[in-house]
């Protein structure tokens, strides 16, 4: 069986997404959860570019990928700020501390 570009990078998308989900599920460190979310977003970006390449709509795929990247930055910066705020309040990065939030 000859693997095409679609097959090779399709499998890469699956593995990236599984790695991201697994990273979110097994850890209790909030920064590592954010790393898992990043891996998931990278899988989605690669999937969109791959779909654009296969269908011939590469311009549309690029513009959507750029939008995703910009929103990804905003998400990472805000979540990093929230994580640091929780760290200042609890002196720990454990996700269990989020249960203590009130109000």
């Amino acid at each position, binding site marked *: 069986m000859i*693997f095409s*570009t*679609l097959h*090779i*990078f399709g*499998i*890469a998308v*699956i*593995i*990236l997404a*599984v*790695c991201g989900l*697994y*990273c979110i599920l*097994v850890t209790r460190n909030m*920064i*590592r959860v954010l*790393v*898992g979310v*990043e*891996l998931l977003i*990278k899988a989605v*970006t*690669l999937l969109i*570019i*791959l779909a*654009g*390449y*296969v*269908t*011939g*709509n*590469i*311009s*549309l*795929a*690029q*513009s959507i*990928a*750029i*939008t995703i*990247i*910009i*929103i*990804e*930055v*905003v998400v*990472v*910066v*805000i979540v*990093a*700020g*929230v*994580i*640091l*705020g929780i*760290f200042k309040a609890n*002196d*720990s*990065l454990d996700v269990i501390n989020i249960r203590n939030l009130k109000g």
Partner: protein
Amino acid sequence: MTLNIILFVALILAALWTVISKTLLKAAFGLAVTSVLLTIIMFGLSSPLAAMFELSVCAGLITAVFISAISLAKPLTSEQKIALAKSKFKKYFFLPIIIVVIIFLLRNFKLPADFHSANVLSQTTVNNIFWTERKMDLLGQLVILLAGVFGIVVLFKKGRKNDI
């Protein structure tokens, strides 16, 4: 094709390194390497503009944000490191099994026959799509950027001395 396979293997190794690495700093560097490899893949898939954004923003800016967040947070104690090392192999034992099962389940997945025929916008450039065909979501993107800026200002604002 050989280059694609090499990039595929390198991308998977970088992603696994990101997930499995013991320290947060190594995870952040692994994420940056994943971004660089994704950039090369995007160039190969004829998306230079998105690749440039990926390289400058994801491999540069986000890595800087991660390293700042890690340096501002406290490192693990030695007891926590030992406990983490002990539970590491148990945690990641199922990762390859899950990947193999998902690929096995999707092995017979067939694309629709008209998958290649949706070639409506192929002649338009990225600039046209950005500034003429998409207007409402660009507005949303600007709002999200502003929300990010104001969110950071509020989060890092220092309170007055008499505030409790």
